[in-house]
């Protein structure tokens, strides 16, 4: 049966950052035949909290926020994902429903690999499992750090830590400052560190006055990284 050609994983710009980086051309071709690639517009939802998982999502380009809605209806961002990251893996392997919702923050290209195929591919190619474990470990480390910060740090410190974390993942060094290549609303930033958007607005103004950050339009720049690190009370 002649099946249409798909975008080959071998040519994916994010291949080296993803979980399939060590696979042979032959295996990558097989994955390419079995995957589905789509481009989502900003604000479209990839998967929904409480729905059953159908497969694994690999981000080829773009950015995604993963949010959890509490019983009070309040939404908090638990994680951000970028090119090379995977989504939906925890529910897939724990055989539980999605515990969060994934929404695009900008135009995003995603490859979907169905559940049976990815489980079979892992069995046949242990490097995929190792790469997934590595990603899970990093996520767990980030979750532990975030959890500790919530209890041990005040909002100012948590905001400084958030900005440094964003710089680590999305920062681009330009003329002695770091441009954050991600656009988040004050509400989204507030939901990431467990505070109100008004508090974020106030502290962002303070950070600007103190020369720690600057802003052009919606783009945030970190202008004094060492001072921000000191304020966040962390070692980078």
């Amino acid at each position, binding site marked *: *049966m*002649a*099946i*249409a*050609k*798909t975008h080959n994983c071998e040519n994916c710009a994010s291949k080296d950052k993803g979980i399939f980086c060590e696979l042979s051309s032959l295996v990558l071709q097989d994955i390419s*035949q*079995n*995957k*589905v*690639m*789509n*481009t*989502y*517009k900003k604000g*479209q*939802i990839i998967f*929904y909290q*409480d*729905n*059953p998982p*159908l*497969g694994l999502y690999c981000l080829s380009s773009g950015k995604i926020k993963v949010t959890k809605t509490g019983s009070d209806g309040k939404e908090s961002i638990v994680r951000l994902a970028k090119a090379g990251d995977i989504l939906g893996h925890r529910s897939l392997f724990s055989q539980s429903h999605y515990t969060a919702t994934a929404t695009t923050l900008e135009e995003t290209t995603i490859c*979907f690999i*169905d*559940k*049976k*195929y990815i489980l*079979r591919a892992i069995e046949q190619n242990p490097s995929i499992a190792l790469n997934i474990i590595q990603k899970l470990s990093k996520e767990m480390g980030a979750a532990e750090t975030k959890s500790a910060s919530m209890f041990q740090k005040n909002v100012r410190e948590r905001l400084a830590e958030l900005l440094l974390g964003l710089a680590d993942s999305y920062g681009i060094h330009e003329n002695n400052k770091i441009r954050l290549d991600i656009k988040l609303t004050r509400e989204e930033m507030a939901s990431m560190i467990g505070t109100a958007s008004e508090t974020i607005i106030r502290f962002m103004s303070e950070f600007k006055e103190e020369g720690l950050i600057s802003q052009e339009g919606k783009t945030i720049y970190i202008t004094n990284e060492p001072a921000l690190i000191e304020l966040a009370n962390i070692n980078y």
Partner: protein
Amino acid sequence: MKQEIKILTPEETYQFSKHFSMQKFEQKFDFIYENQIPNVAIVIVSGLVQLISKKKVKAEIRPDTLLGAYNLLYNKEVRYGWRVIEGTELLILEKSDLLSYLEQQNSFLVQLFGIKFSQSLQKS
């Protein structure tokens, strides 16, 4: 559009249920958006799927309907988005499974797809 949606007999739906797992969706949500390739194909067992275009409901699709198998196998975008209504039960047809069954010449699927997709297969 004709290739995207196939009306099945209850017997055909039953045959699909022997090969593919069913999932119940408890909330209303957009399964795929218009002009996307479906991640999986679906057979509606109970409930309702709305076809969406420019945020408007264009049609309502009822049980014993196969959606998106052609699009999934041929990487063709669907014309309308699929909005699943709460309580809907769907059979989930994964691409790797469909490909594998067709390669193995599964009699039911070969017969069904042979009949239903014969023209499109020849064109490709």
